[in-house]
């Protein structure tokens, strides 16, 4: 089926994804939710349990909604009187993680590319290798080795090794595709889960929840700040994962802002990169790059420390692949800043761009989509709560 066929079909007929979640994964969530809904002790922890209480039966769409609402903080596992070795064997975080991973593939657009999720680590590695090879190759093909290995200083220096039109055209094409793919994925998610638009105030709620990761560890009498974070290593809660996640997210957003400002400079003002050390794009990019490096490195460490009981290893290493490529994007960006006045600029630029292009290419088929569906779930949850109030 071609891309346009698939697009037409999705647009025309709505989505029937009932059979698309892994039946074992969604069945386990359904089994566990029936137990949790008769207990409800965890209702103070996060948005998952109030959302569960608003339902008695759990369709695959509900399973996907709850799974994407779950932040895998582990609080409910350590609190659970029915966790193994109890015969009910309730493990909410792991069952949700399995269903969540399955939902990413279910909503992937175009459908055939859903397979990219199944061996994600390998796919990501291959795409990075190809991206790097192509970028370096392209540059070498377009310009002479003298220029590639030359020292370039001043406005337009980067474009001595790769013309701006090409440097910008590649990501523009990739980004346009990634955005289309993610919009389609979001659409499928929204229809499948039966989410309902709850107005702009719900958007505010969802943004606030994301901005502070407020659903980690529970809203207490001390307010959500009393939540205490994730139960990463054991039954004690820690804010380490929350902090590293937020460094990653804000670091990424700052880098994105840096690129956007740079684009504006180039097209609106005709100012060509590289920009001065105290210019807005460089400051945003440097700060963003540093905290993105720290955040991703921290997340990798926290992932290793995670209690095996609540850790779900995605088939094919999707989580690690995503964190590593984010780290490499930011690290090579910082490296480029460091070596941009030397003869290593050409090679470093090529490597950095290779990572950047690869990142955007795999975006719709990587862990990146967790942000998309988590936000959609938070939005739906905020809408539901507001309607009940």
């Amino acid at each position, binding site marked *: 089926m071609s891309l346009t066929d698939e697009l037409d079909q999705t647009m025309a007929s709505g989505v029937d994804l009932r059979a698309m979640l892994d039946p074992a994964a969604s069945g386990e969530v359904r089994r566990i939710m*029936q*137990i949790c*809904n*008769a*207990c*409800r*002790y*965890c*209702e*103070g*922890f996060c948005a998952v349990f109030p959302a569960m*209480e608003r339902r*008695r039966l759990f369709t695959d769409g509900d399973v996907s909604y709850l799974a994407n609402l779950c932040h895998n903080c582990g*609080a*409910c596992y*350590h*609190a*659970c*009187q*029915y*966790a*193994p*070795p*109890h*015969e*009910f064997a309730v493990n909410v975080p792991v069952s949700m993680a399995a269903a969540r991973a399955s939902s990413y593939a279910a909503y992937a657009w175009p459908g055939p590319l859903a397979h990219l999720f199944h061996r994600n680590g390998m796919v990501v590695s291959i795409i990075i290798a190809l991206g790097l090879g192509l970028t370096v190759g392209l540059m070498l093909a377009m310009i002479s080795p003298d220029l590639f290995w030359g020292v370039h200083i001043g406005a337009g220096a980067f474009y001595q090794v790769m013309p701006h039109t090409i440097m910008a055209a590649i990501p523009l094409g990739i980004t346009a595709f990634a955005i289309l793919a993610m919009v389609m994925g979001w659409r499928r998610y929204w229809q499948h889960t039966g989410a309902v638009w709850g107005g702009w105030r719900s958007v505010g709620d969802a943004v606030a929840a994301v901005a502070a990761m407020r659903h980690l560890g*529970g*809203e*207490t*009498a*001390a*307010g959500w700040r*009393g939540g*205490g974070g994730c139960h990463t290593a054991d*039954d*004690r809660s820690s804010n380490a994962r929350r902090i590293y996640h937020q460094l990653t997210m804000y670091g990424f957003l700052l880098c994105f802002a840096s690129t956007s400002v740079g684009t504006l400079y180039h097209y609106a003002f005709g100012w060509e990169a590289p920009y001065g050390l105290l210019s807005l794009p460089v400051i945003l990019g440097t700060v963003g790059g540093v905290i993105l490096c720290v955040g991703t490195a921290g997340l990798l460490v926290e992932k290793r420390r995670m209690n095996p009981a609540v850790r779900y290893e995605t088939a094919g290493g999707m989580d690690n692949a995503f964190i590593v490529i984010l780290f490499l994007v930011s690290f090579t960006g910082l490296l480029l800043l460091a070596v941009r006045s030397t003869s290593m600029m050409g090679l470093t630029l090529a490597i950095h761009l290779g990572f950047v292009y690869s990142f955007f290419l795999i975006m719709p088929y990587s862990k990146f989509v967790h942000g998309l569906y988590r936000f959609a779930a938070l939005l739906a949850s905020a809408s539901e709560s507001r309607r009940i109030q």
Partner: protein
Amino acid sequence: MCHAAISEPVWDVIVIGGGNAGVCAAIAAAERDCSVLVIEAAPADMRGGNTRHTRNLRAMHDAPTDVLTDRYSFEEYWDDLMRVTKGVTNNDLAELTLRGSAALTAWLGARGVRFQAALSGTLNLGRTNAFFLGGGRAMLNALCRHAETVGVQFIYDAEVDDVQLTDGFCEGIVVNWNDRRLTLSCKQLVTAAGGFEANLDWLAEGWGDAAKNFLVRGTPYNKGKILRSLLDHGAKPVGALDQCHAVAIDARAPKYDGGIASRLDAVPFAVVLNKDADRFYDEGEDFWPKRYAIWGRLVAGQPDQIAYAIIDSQGVNRFMPSVFTPIVDDTIEGLAEQLGLPPDATRSTIDAYNAACPAGQIDQSILDGKSTKGLTPEKTNWSAPISTPPFYGYPLRPGITFTYMGVAVNERAQILMADGRPFANMFAAGEIMAGNILGQGYLAGIGMTIGGVFGRIAGEEAARVLNR
């Protein structure tokens, strides 16, 4: 999890039982510089007795707090307790419990226990009860963490075999741990080892053969071994053998450890039949939170200790979903057959009930007075015909949470001998002495209050005897 070797030749305080009461006692003693060992019968994953199944504690307060709304005065709390126990209580110890409850949430909060914000809670108990964030197991995890930071040592999977007494003075205990039989010496002993609800033979002494059909909602580790040992050593018993917290739960629940999820809230909107398809009690007598605790005894009084709640498609969504899917059929006879009820008798009981129902819609938000006319017994509220298929059925059994018979204590939590004098160095807290306060009936959340208040007292008094 702390599995340190047992390091002390003589412990200042040994606590038997690692639930709420035991850990509160351990903390209170360790904070007064006592060396403390907690001996828990369950493996670490299943530790804490019935604390893991609890959700809240009941606390008096004269003004709103961060975890409790409005006001719950001593007088109101006292009246509530007198109503459920019908006065079968030790007034001094009851007053001590209620007054001690006022400081309990702050004391626990300062030791890492987190409470839900005051306004939430599904049972509308936010005024009288403080809810642990994540329930009793999360509460206990926090408490054990704190206990470890103040130096308390824990051993798990360790069953105390005997308490060694010489002339009424406890020298130590014998414990089976790690395939070894150890004798441990202590200066003070706190027994917080729970009741005997998981000991069906002992239950049978109070309930007869009916006990074998009971399901035990609580922990399977409360076999009453320590209680038996104390009584054998001359401790004064308190409470009747058959008094307990028992509710009607889904008969398909596990034999042990089913906890809260085995609860079934269908009764007020159902008709409940015994195995002969006869009704035996007014299902709509009062709101369910005020009546659920009597239904364990009601079902226990029926032949074979089994009953069946039958409801139709109009009623099935009126109560909280339960963990077991109801048995469903398009006809009453078919449902009866599936449940193992006599189909014709079931049909005629339902027909008679339907004919006695008043006209009009029921209103579950109030005592709506929609009573049947001419039945024995009547159903006095929420009587709606069971007539819209499909029909649903839930089997019910008595589910026992904890027993009340225990050892008598004084206001210092010292265990009393048969003649009323206290043992010099033995204390009790929690279920093992709850019968001093709960002679009968139950008040939601008071079990944890008794455990917390007397756990603290036991730990503090044990330390005080040692001049700490």
